[in-house]
């Protein structure tokens, strides 16, 4: 323990958390958020998932090294490490699968504009593009090919009706306020407007909750 650690220990205002703990907190938050929203959220830009994956890989190496020496004392530590590893892997896997489910459902929508494409990670973009191409080819071969050329599009937007299925952004979500804030929400009979306090759980539409979540005034629960 050096002088910085001691200073951090006595100063209640510094958030002296190790980077590993902060990453776990961020990962948990993005997972909960991704599970709770009707639309796909942006891929974390700070390299969170890459960092976590790197740590998981090195931890697996450590497990392999520990399994080699059959020291009974390191045996229990090994159990703990492996349990934690499984929990971590579950988080990452569930996060990626939740995203994949959304990409699958509305692939054309997320591929339609550059803004929406920017939400996907490189791998997800490659997956969505290829998946959509395969699907379109399959449709062409099985039935679309026998239609006239004007009827073969899957993303026709003529006549003010779009063929692209979009997620319903007005779906209700639960959020928790991280600081005191005024919350406004659209309602059927009247628009709501409340003074929220830190820790309040609020039900409102995702389109109203999104600005709060983006500014980190609130998180999804």
């Amino acid at each position: 323990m050096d002088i910085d650690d001691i200073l951090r220990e006595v100063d209640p205002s510094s958030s002296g958390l190790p980077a590993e703990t902060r990453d776990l907190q961020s990962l948990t938050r993005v997972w909960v958020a991704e599970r709770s929203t009707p639309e796909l959220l942006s891929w974390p830009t700070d390299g969170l998932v890459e960092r976590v994956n790197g740590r998981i890989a090195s931890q697996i190496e450590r497990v392999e090294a520990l399994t080699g020496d059959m020291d009974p004392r390191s045996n229990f530590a090994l159990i703990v490490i492996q349990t934690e590893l499984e929990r971590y892997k579950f988080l990452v896997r569930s996060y990626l699968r939740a995203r994949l489910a959304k990409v699958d459902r509305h692939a054309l929508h997320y591929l339609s504009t550059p803004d929406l494409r920017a939400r996907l990670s490189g791998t997800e973009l490659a997956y969505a593009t290829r998946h959509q191409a395969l699907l379109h080819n399959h449709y062409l071969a099985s039935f679309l090919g026998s239609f006239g050329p004007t009827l073969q599009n899957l993303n026709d937007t003529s006549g003010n009706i779009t063929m692209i299925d979009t997620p319903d952004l007005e779906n209700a979500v639960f959020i928790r306020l991280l600081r005191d804030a005024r919350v406004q929400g659209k309602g059927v009979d009247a628009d709501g407007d409340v003074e929220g306090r830190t820790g309040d759980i609020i039900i409102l539409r995702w389109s109203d909750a999104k600005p709060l979540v983006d500014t980190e005034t609130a998180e999804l629960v």
Partner: protein
Amino acid sequence: MALPLPQGLVPTEVAFLCEMEMVTIVPRQRLESIPLLSGDTPALRPPHRAQMPLWLALLLKKQRRANIVPPAWLHPASLADIIHHETNVDPQAFSPPPPPPTRADGRTGRAKPLQENIRRTREQPKPGEDPRLAPPFLPSCTAESPAGYLPYHWLELAETLLAHAADDVPAASEVRALLRDLQEVRAAKMRGSTASLEGGGGVVVLRGVGAMELAESRAFVLGVVDGVRKLGASAETTRRDEEANGGGGYGGRNAGGGFEDSDDEMDFD
């Protein structure tokens, strides 16, 4: 490959989150620090207390390497206080959540003296502090957590402790009975809150509700809110048009296309 679960956390996922809550343990054996992905565990030196995530505390408990110190709010007297508050003081709302602690790192290796902690939890957070920490990363289930407030993961944590560490909970059978009462009182309030959902007011505040209570009724609540919205979509559009024509500022933002989309959606669901 894609996750087949509906939007929103299901109870098993809430239980998984709850296992990240920090609890206080009294080790019975020495154990060196273990390098984990979420940071190193504190080295265990009996009889010094340490803070651990619940999943690790349960693992140590099962191997008889440690005892878990139940949080102060799980004491029968504290639970009885909360029930009194829920039934008599404020029969409409849930009891308030614990006050935000000033020191919110949840991973300090050693237990603080009790006095200091009580003082700290009563203080308001200073401005400029990182407010982003929230359950399960707040130390709301450690031995020093304030009595008389139910934290976000109260139901899951209490059930887990009673199931796997009942011998560490003082007056376990009494606690069990009190928890049952508490759960029933609050479930009635949760059901009652649907009355305000029907009104279509837009924002519903459930201060102090627990994670598992939300997870249990999530599908129902979301179904009611979305159902009311879709039924009233045309009325809402008309109201918004009127407000926009009458010079109202707020309605114009989303009046047009968004609602037509949601009408289309209804046919497919």
